[in-house]
């Protein structure tokens, strides 16, 4: 297998979990799918629509998000926001993430200079 293929596969695996973290962090206030994509891409996190929309549905079915259709605007929009469970899960996940980042930094310490 080519190096690029291996690398992109690994990056995909790494990103899979972090996208959930990003989504939960932003949906404390209601937001529709496409605005979430734009906010994330402004922060340098590119998420494809065909990944995000199915993910939002999955998180909703897990009880982390709730959705409602807003029909007042020019076109109907589906807004998502986190449930109390979603907020709890996000807080725990975030702590876990920060701990992991800290541990990783300690783990490879000065290795960055070597590469």
């Amino acid at each position: 297998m080519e190096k690029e293929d291996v690398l992109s596969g690994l990056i995909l695996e790494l990103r899979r979990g972090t996208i959930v973290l990003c989504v939960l962090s932003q949906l404390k206030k209601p937001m529709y799918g496409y605005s979430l994509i734009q906010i994330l891409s402004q922060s340098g996190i590119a998420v494809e629509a065909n990944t995000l929309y199915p993910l939002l549905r999955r998180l909703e079915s897990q009880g982390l998000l709730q959705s409602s259709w807003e029909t007042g605007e020019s076109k109907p929009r589906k807004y998502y926001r986190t449930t109390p469970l979603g907020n709890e899960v996000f807080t725990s996940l975030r702590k876990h993430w920060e701990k992991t980042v800290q541990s990783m930094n300690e783990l490879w310490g000065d290795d960055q200079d070597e590469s």
Partner: protein
Amino acid sequence: MSHDLIERYIYAVLKNLPARQRADIEAELKELISDMLEERCADLVPSERDIRVVLTELGTPSELAAKYHSDGEKCLIGPPYYSKYKLVMTIVSISVVFGMSMVSLITTLMGETSSWYMGLFSWFGNTFSSLIWAFAFVTALFAFFQWRNVDFGPELGDDLSSLPPVPKKDEVISRWECIAGIVISVLFAVVFLFAPQMITAVLGEAGNFEFIPVFNIQEIQRIWYLILSFSALGILKECVKLYEGRYTKLLAAVTVATNCVSGVFSWLFLANGKVINLQFIRSMSELFGPNETFIVHVFENFHLFFLGVILFALVLDTALVVYKAIKYN
């Protein structure tokens, strides 16, 4: 925003999704595509090309539908069932090939097919079609399990306290013992079904041998199914031994059951005495003469003697397995 290409694209995505989700996903995709077009074209009316670019970005309809499916829905037979599916498929395939080979051999040797190569052709054809049936049946069964999400209960060892203890040395059944058992069962079936005349008494002096088969060949050929069942039961028992690898309650139960049935088969096989070649009994009686009344008596009731030996072996085997299963559990 409605456009024929968008409508067709959404329809193609929804076609592959569960009906109860379709309406919601349809509205969601319309909203998404419209948002993407707005970003791309701002206030301008999107051209056909813009729509194509946006839809290409979303991926092919089947790719997008696949992303909406949960992992479990993607597979015909998924992770919790796949390893069992493989195991069952292996056992079933081996049994089918073995069983069909036995049946083909028997029919060929009993002269029901005109020649050996016709036998070979029918063996190949029957085995192949039986394998396809077995494959289809097992696959459909496991696909049903997957579809209904059938719960087989916790795996052995999922609960740490249910992990079986490491067997002690005497408790382990050697693989070779099981393989030897299977080979003996197969040989028994092959010899009795195809060449019962091989078991023969040799009388006379050098240069003038006379071969007298112990068994009545016609009778043996008539009860071929009893012989085959007897052999199959032996193989079944050895397979359970091989799978368990130690003396367990399950093995004891299977041994009791198969040995009881084997005992009944032996009874049906031997009790009426028809299977012993009358000529053999006569020759033996003549050979030992009237003085050796005990030996003559044994040969005259050779079928009962034979039955006694088999039943004794079955009882001994059952008692041993049950004893060990109780001792080690």
